[in-house]
């Protein structure tokens, strides 16, 4: 199918309704985007943004309603139809084949390089270079997707969509993995691109919505609750409309703590999946009762650090002293028993067993603990009581405690993980991207819990790319770059600008 070369001057969505079993995911939604416009689509998780975009991209068929491009009704039976019409989407969950390289992934969709008996990879490579240069989005064409961090994968997705010749971009939270500088650059870039195309932009970050979009549409529970011009409304107005109530994320205003050193990492060397040193002589120490924010663009060794501490990755050299005991190359079980709590990056596949019920997931680490099992037989009553209590305490929204944890929304899955990790009374907590992709309500809840644990004297290593999160919660901020700690700052000395520069790999502020 040939990709159209015609410009998309208007895209209209009229009265779209989509039902899933038991859920009305889109309820009579109408939208309209004109030439060169940027529409921000805002709403909490589960509001129906992604469903609507999947309908636009031909992944789902609407039950009712229609889509018009340049005034003509179109029907997308598959994503191919949507591509052909010039729509390109960067999904929240990346649509990449993990065991293929970047080049091969892009070649999959790049039909110009195909001939009946030959796939011209050279042509694809040229195209990638052209797009990379044009938009300043650099990717390594020969890296395998599974070797890339989430942030790097998102970059690949953007490049892929642009390579395939999209005339209309749909971006599902495109900035979630970028540094502030990169985000600013992206915003400038996207604005510049409006001379050629229109954009629908889904985001939780209201400041970006403000900076970037012309019009804004707010969804709640599958239907449109507000539409208007972005300039007329402040971010807090938008937040209130989005959640239906006022939201304010909590701050850490306490003086820096003077607790004993809980975790002391010395000269740590750890290899990545690709075999190079992802952590190269990393040193970091964290006190009990202190939150250290580890800022950095994803892919600079954060994942490897968290996995090495938790016994999930081999340590090549160095020490991980946890209250004096070296945890390097100990089994995950040993690390857990030593009192380490861990909120992993991949909450859906690592933090829970998706097919297990909530109550089973809540005792994932404690199935053999005498509290929950007697002579290896599970103590069902205690397990249920535990789950019932935690469900209330952590506000896990689910029909009951027997539903599969994988069927919950991201925010609720994160609450299950948090409930388990905190209720185990850890001595230390490692939280990796704890609020990535969560709506404001869930984010607020999780931040409050983390601050409360800090007050109780638990040391916390908070890994995040979101500077707001880091600045809100941390006592000290360590910036990681290429497997080393670039610099450690006290909260009072850190600004978005200084952190952003450090995250980009520049050590001395004066050089800029």
């Amino acid at each position: 199918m040939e990709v159209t070369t015609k410009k998309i001057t208007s895209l209209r969505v009229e009265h779209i309704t989509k039902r899933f079993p038991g859920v009305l995911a889109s309820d009579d939604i109408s939208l309209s985007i004109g030439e060169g416009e940027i529409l921000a689509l805002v709403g909490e998780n589960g509001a129906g943004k992604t469903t609507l975009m999947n309908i636009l991209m031909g992944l789902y068929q609407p039950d009712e309603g229609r889509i018009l491009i340049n005034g003509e009704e179109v029907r997308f039976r598959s994503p191919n139809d949507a591509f052909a019409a010039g729509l390109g989407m960067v999904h929240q969950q990346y649509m990449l084949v993990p065991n293929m390289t970047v080049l091969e992934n892009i070649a999959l969709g790049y039909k110009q390089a195909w001939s009946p008996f030959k796939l011209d990879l050279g042509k694809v490579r040229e195209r990638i270079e052209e797009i990379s240069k044009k938009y300043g989005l650099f990717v390594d064409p020969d890296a395998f997707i599974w070797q890339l961090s989430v942030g790097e994968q998102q970059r690949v997705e953007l490049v892929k969509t642009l390579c395939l010749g999209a005339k209309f971009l749909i971006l599902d939270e495109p900035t979630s993995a970028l540094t502030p500088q990169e985000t600013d650059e992206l915003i400038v870039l996207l604005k510049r691109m409006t001379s050629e195309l229109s954009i629908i932009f889904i985001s939780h970050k209201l400041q970006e919505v403000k900076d970037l979009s012309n019009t804004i549409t707010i969804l709640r529970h599958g239907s449109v609750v507000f539409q208007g011009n972005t300039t007329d409304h402040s971010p807090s107005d938008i937040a209130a409309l989005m959640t239906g109530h006022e939201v304010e994320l909590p701050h850490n205003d306490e003086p820096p703590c003077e607790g004993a050193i809980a975790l002391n990492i010395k000269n740590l060397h750890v290899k990545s999946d690709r075999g190079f040193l992802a952590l190269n002589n990393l040193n970091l120490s964290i006190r009990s009762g202190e939150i250290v924010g580890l800022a950095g663009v994803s892919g600079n060794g954060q994942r490897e650090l968290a996995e090495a501490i938790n016994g999930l990755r081999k340590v090549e050299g160095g020490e991980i002293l946890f209250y004096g005991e070296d945890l390097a190359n100990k089994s995950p079980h040993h690390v857990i028993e030593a009192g380490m709590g861990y909120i992993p990056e991949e909450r859906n596949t690592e933090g829970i067993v998706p097919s297990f019920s909530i109550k089973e997931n809540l005792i994932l680490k404690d199935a053999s603990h005498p509290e929950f099992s007697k002579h290896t037989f599970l103590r069902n009553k205690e397990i249920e009581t535990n789950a019932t209590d935690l469900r209330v305490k952590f506000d896990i929204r689910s029909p009951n405690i027997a539903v599969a944890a994988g069927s919950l929304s991201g925010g609720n899955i994160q609450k299950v993980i948090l409930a388990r990790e905190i209720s185990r009374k850890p001595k230390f907590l490692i939280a990796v991207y704890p609020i990535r992709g969560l709506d404001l309500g869930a984010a607020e809840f999780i931040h409050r819990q983390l601050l409360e644990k800090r007050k109780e004297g638990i040391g916390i290593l908070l890994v995040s790319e979101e500077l707001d999160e880091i600045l809100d919660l941390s006592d000290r901020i360590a910036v990681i770059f290429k497997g080393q700690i670039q610099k450690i700052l006290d909260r009072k000395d850190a600004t978005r600008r200084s952190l952003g520069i450090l995250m980009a790999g520049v050590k001395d502020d004066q050089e800029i």
Partner: protein
Amino acid sequence: MTKKFKILYKVSIIILAIMAAMLLGAIILWTIGADVAKTYMVILFEPLKTSLQITEVLIRAIPLTIIALGISVAYRSGIINIGAEGQMAMGILGTTAIALLFPTLPKPVLLPMAVLSGALCGAFWGFIPGILKAKLQVSELLSTVMLNYIAAQFYTFFLRGPMLDPAESTLGGSGTPQSMRLTKNIWLDRFIPGTRLHTGIFFAIFLAIIIYLLLWKTSTGMKMRAAGASARAARYGGISVTWYLVIAMAISGAFAGMAGAIEIAGVHRRAIEGITGGYGFSGIVVALFGGLHPAGIIPAAFFFGLLIVGADMTQRLVGVPANMVNVLQGIIILVIVSTKMVLADPYLMEKVWRRYQKLTNPPKEVEA
């Protein structure tokens, strides 16, 4: 969606599936010139006509149940055991060896010892692919299948060599390599006079209960299921995935070995070449068919026992070769598996419901 509609929907899907299976089978039977209706009647109902035949079905269901239980443990723990056939053969050898070595021991000692020996031999045969996978990431699909061949050769070697019935070598005998008749001290009782149904059936039910308790009521079972459902999350949770993988394979092998032990102690009372007869492979289908759950495995094993006996009878009564019945079995399996997928698809059900509503309610009412 009303409850009535849901039931109606499911029943009609099942009826459609049965019709599809029958139709496909009918086409095949018709092409070989068989009497279609009569063949069906014989396969499905003839084995249930007399109590003697029902006991024959049950006898087939016993090893199928035990093997499928073991396979479900491996499957739930994230490793696919295709080696039950070989593990069963090793179990038979282990049992026979004990019975031949200690024929004079009293039954209460010898029988448990022989079954245990069968279980250990099977467990060892399951342990090998387990440890290879855990330590060297050797695919269990390869190693279990290859070990089947090795076990088959072992089996042949012992039955034609050290364990061969002396009567066979001197007098010509039956011509089938087999051990001598085992001591009565390991025979399982046949408790219905005039039939071959043996007490192994109670043992199979007992094992089903054990597996249910193990997988769903113990912390060990929960960890095994976690390792199988999501190895990554299990590792994160401090569960040694590789350790449970090895354990699960050993249990799986032990069950296949016990199935072999029970089969010779209950039915044949001697080891005979070719006795495993594909039970190890049918066991996989029974396990999947039964939803990897003991409560599903028992009826699934009964159904497959029925098909095995039915295949025998069509050959005798209608002249349809037993191999043809195997083809029919294949079709039935495919259709049932597909039907299960269709029934598990809530989207399709929702779609049909809306069509159904449009049909039953005139459009005007819908708009109003």
